């Protein structure tokens, strides 16, 4: 594989870009691997990457039913932040955010990480109190956030209407080092790096069964034949329940649709990410000029990758009050992804009732920001059997009642 650099661009420019070659191999599966990861989205690929990079485990296959990053990795609003209240969440999301900062260099692939700042608007007295509390908690956790005044909000986002009428902007939780990244590039960059380490990224290979013996995993049945493995990582977001069913255990997960949309492209008008959680909408401007808008999840189980129109309508209606400038924009694209929601809205990174099967799921509406941290922690869990980052995210927390209750704490559109 060729290294990407300014010299490579110059060399290829002189020969009509004929020499680039494929970024990753598309091999047929081998009979046996040390570890198999099911799901070649961001989290699955990151898990494989750090298994190889941090733990020297390179005899790995990543199986994907569809195509690389074609699930939620390609269906999110690309926001990266780590301003969570609970210590366990802040630790893993901050790990992820810090890894995003060096990801382009690390993978030799431009993921276009843009630390443009993430702002969560406080539009009620309750939110002011909540976000001040989060800012104090973040100070203790070493996550750099601050609570800022409405004037500061207006100076950072000139297009915002801070006077209401219904929900005036009373302040905001500001994380200057949060931002966005190019979502597809994250999947492609990890896939390229995994392939370079000798791992097999196998697309269009659907897992149809999980073989077990004496409570231990033996391998998987797939649409490309039977493959043996010593360790199995299930990293499939919305389809977690389906895979858990194959492995013979149940999960505290419900799959629902979460939607987003982009407007037609306009000239640059907003260079930060703004989240308005009281009215349930968030918005940023992409490099192409589209306003990227997301809202809340649907309330019922769904595997169709499309959601209900009225949710989008509510999101846009609410955002127009705060951003009058967007009222005449046309919608360009609209999509939905199937997110895996847990009871406490925190992820599950855990061993399972079947020996050597590990599971990484439950990222719900906030998985993209966590990709590198999640992969880092999951790889450690799979290689060593334990990880300080995943300790509190175990499956047993539901039985024990030790929730990481971000559904109340994060104050975010869930």
């Amino acid at each position, binding site marked *: 594989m060729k290294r990407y650099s300014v010299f490579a661009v110059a060399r290829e420019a002189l020969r009509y870009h004929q020499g680039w070659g494929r970024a990753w191999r598309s091999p047929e599966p081998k009979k046996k691997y040390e570890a198999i990861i099911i799901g070649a989205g961001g989290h699955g690929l990151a898990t494989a990457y750090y298994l190889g990079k941090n733990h020297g485990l390179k005899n790995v296959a990543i199986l994907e039913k569809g195509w690389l990053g074609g699930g939620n990795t390609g269906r999110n609003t690309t926001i990266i932040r780590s301003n969570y209240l609970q210590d366990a969440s802040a630790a893993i999301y901050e790990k992820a955010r810090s890894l995003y900062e060096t990801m382009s260099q690390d993978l030799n692939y431009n993921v276009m990480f843009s630390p443009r700042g993430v702002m969560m608007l406080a539009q009620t007295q309750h939110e002011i109190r909540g976000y001040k509390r989060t800012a104090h908690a973040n100070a203790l956790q070493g996550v750099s956030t601050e609570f800022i005044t409405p004037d500061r909000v207006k100076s950072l986002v000139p297009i915002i209407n801070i006077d209401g009428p219904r929900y005036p902007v009373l302040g905001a939780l500001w994380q200057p080092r949060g931002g966005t990244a190019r979502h597809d590039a994250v999947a492609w960059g990890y896939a390229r790096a995994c392939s370079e380490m000798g791992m097999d990224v196998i697309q269009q290979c659907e897992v149809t069964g999980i073989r077990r013996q004496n409570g231990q995993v033996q391998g998987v049945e797939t649409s490309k034949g039977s493959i043996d493995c010593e360790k199995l990582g299930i990293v499939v977001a919305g389809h977690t329940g389906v895979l858990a069913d194959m492995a013979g255990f*149940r999960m505290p997960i419900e799959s629902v649709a979460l939607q987003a949309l982009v407007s037609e492209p306009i000239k640059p008008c907003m260079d930060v990410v703004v989240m308005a959680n009281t009215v349930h909408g968030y918005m940023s401007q992409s490099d192409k000029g589209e306003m990227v808008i997301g809202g809340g999840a649907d309330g019922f189980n769904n595997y169709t990758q499309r959601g*209900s129109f009225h949710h989008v309508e509510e999101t846009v209606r609410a955002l127009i009050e705060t951003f009058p400038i967007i009222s005449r924009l046309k919608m360009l694209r609209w999509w939905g992804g199937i997110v895996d929601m847990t009871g406490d809205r925190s992820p599950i990174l855990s061993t399972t009732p079947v020996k050597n099967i590990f599971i990484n799921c439950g990222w719900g509406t906030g998985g993209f920001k966590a990709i590198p941290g999640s992969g880092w922690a999951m790889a450690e869990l799979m290689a060593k059997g334990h990880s300080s980052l995943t300790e509190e995210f175990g499956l047993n927390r539901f039985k024990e009642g030790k929730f990481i209750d971000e559904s109340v704490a994060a104050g975010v559109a869930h």
Partner: protein
Amino acid sequence: MLIFTCPYCGIEADETELTPGGEAHLKRFGPGSSDEEFEGYLFNRENPKGVHFERWRHVYGCGKWFHAARCTLTLEVFGTYSAQTFEPPEEIKERIRAKRPGWKWRNFS
């Protein structure tokens, strides 16, 4: 958009007129049950890709809870029925059998 017929008032109601209430026919476990049973009742869900049974409330209509049989993969609605029952009526199960041969949901089939 999902459209259900409320089994109580007989009205065809849009999703915006209704509130989803999660999985149907849960057996409730309380004091005296094992940890596993209690955890299962509180958190573990079928979350099927296909035939599903749910509770819905006709919140902007008659206000009553009812049950619905639905496919989570196609959003097809097989029918709605009263909330005062422990299992779907035979007629709805038959309708699902005709459209999804071999379907299974918990101990219903």
